[in-house]
């Protein structure tokens, strides 16, 4: 965007700066697309909103992954998913597993914990985590935890940025 903005090398800028920058840039792109489309149609239907929501969501994940770059396994997996246009599929699958987990996990956990508790519940939890973290299916437990920690960090930063933007918009 601005030449001064690029003076700082990418590695030295904080993760939050990078995340915010990329996400805002993605939003700008979306807005330009939207303004291009809105001029044609006056009313914004629910379907448009839904589509926009998906676009924004994809943009959020894509900007997060590209801000992190190739340094992390989860970001690499996310980027490859985006390139293969599989991000939608992953998001949908995640939502489905989340719904299923909400229903069945309560029973499973209640059963497991009183009996002996750890091993079977642990494995299930590991599986769940693998589904949540992008690229987690092929990782071993150790790196899974590493990736989860970094993923949580970036997710929290991304959520903060988005909340700031929304607050900015709504005030």
């Amino acid at each position, binding site marked *: 965007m601005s030449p001064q903005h690029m003076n700082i090398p990418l590695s030295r800028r904080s993760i939050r700066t990078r995340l915010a920058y990329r996400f805002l840039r993605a939003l700008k792109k979306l*807005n330009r697309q939207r303004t291009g489309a809105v001029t044609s149609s006056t009313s914004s239907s629910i379907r448009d909103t839904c589509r926009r929501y998906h676009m924004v969501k994809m943009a959020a994940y894509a900007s997060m992954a590209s801000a992190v770059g190739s340094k992390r396994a989860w970001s690499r997996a996310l980027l490859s998913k985006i390139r293969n246009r599989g991000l939608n599929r992953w998001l949908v699958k995640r939502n489905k597993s989340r719904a299923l987990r909400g229903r069945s996990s309560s029973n499973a956990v209640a059963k497991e914990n009183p009996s002996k508790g750890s091993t079977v519940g642990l494995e299930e*939890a590991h599986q769940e985590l693998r589904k*949540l973290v992008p690229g987690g299916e092929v990782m071993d437990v150790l790196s899974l935890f590493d990736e989860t920690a970094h993923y949580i960090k970036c997710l929290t930063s991304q959520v*903060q940025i988005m909340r700031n933007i929304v607050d900015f918009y709504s005030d």
Partner: protein
Amino acid sequence: MSSTENTTGNMGFQESGGGGDSILNCPSSGMDTNSMSDKVAGMAMCSESMFKSSTRVDPFYGGTGWDPLVSLNHAENFGGSSVVPHHNEFGNSHYPVGLENQAISSTSHLVHYASDSGLGDMVPKLACFGSGAFSEMVNSFGLPDCGQVTETSFHQKYAQKMGVGAQEDCQISEERALGGNGKKKRKASDFQSPLNPKKNIEGEQQKDLSANSSECSKEQDEMKQKMEQSNSTNLRGKQASGKQIKDNSNSGEPAKDTYIHVRAKRGQATNSHSLAERVRRERISERMRLLQELVPGCNKITGKAVMLDEIINYVQSLQQQVEFLSMKLATVNPELNVDLDRIFQKDILHSRGSSAATLGIGPGLNSSHPFPGYPQGSFPGISGAAAPFHPVPQAVWDNELQSILQMGFDSSPSINNLGPNAGRSKLEL
């Protein structure tokens, strides 16, 4: 600490009661086997003496049914870990303190050193093996940080010259210990693979048994039996604090070692598989601790399954927040239809004088932005004021973007640590 040292010294010295012959015989054999055990610190000696005393009979004290576990108890208290005593035959509480105190005082600093370097958890292991085998065993595990390997020969010599030359011995052994670290490390390199420790230990045990006198070996067998029982029964992870100590001692080793030198703690199986598993489990628990710091409100949770559930819930909630906020953005955005550059600067203006909670307050105006009376939320007014924004140099954008981030992130102090990544051990950005 000194009190525990005294008790440990007492323990050891009591031990030395028994057969003087064995003591006399031992050093010769011990010397042959453990040349580098000379490097053993006197401190190690003192703690060693406890265990060795169980194996060898000390001529000075009528140590009879000394319970190695009790001495281990003291040793581990000394080292900061806990021991499960199997049987307490020995009510060893009152022992002549005079001699021991001399020796202990001379070696007290070494004792401190050993405890600091995590030798405390090494000490319990001494009891598990024969006297001569100990130093080899320790070397085989290859702890480079603890250059003080308790020395059977040294211990024997010490027992011999208990009353008179004890202090000198301690000092000599200290010097030798401190000076001979290189030798020890060289020998430690011989026992690189953690897969062989058990073999080495067994071989050395046999060597030691053959070398010792009958009285020594008798007590050794007794102790070995006890230790084997304890090994078989306390297989996994009974020494939680010992684990921490091992963490400390292992943390000194570079993570990039091809071989991972692991010290099996007292009461734990020394099988290579279980050792590797223990290392793996410790790594996993390390990562779990990191995750616990990241996930808010998980300080009190103990247990992997519950913690994992919390982590999963947190990740899911974060992703749900992302979706919710993106939905909000999708609905909010088209209404405004404003160029995002202007939004950046407006955001900056907003952030200048306000916190995230009080966004409406407004005029924390930056001097570089000559925007009078920015109406909050009245975006049509912006279009009129849009013109003065364009010539505003983008150079300030970066700094102000930082301020945006700071505005939001100041409210959550934990997040502030994420950016500069200060203090995070394993997470890198």
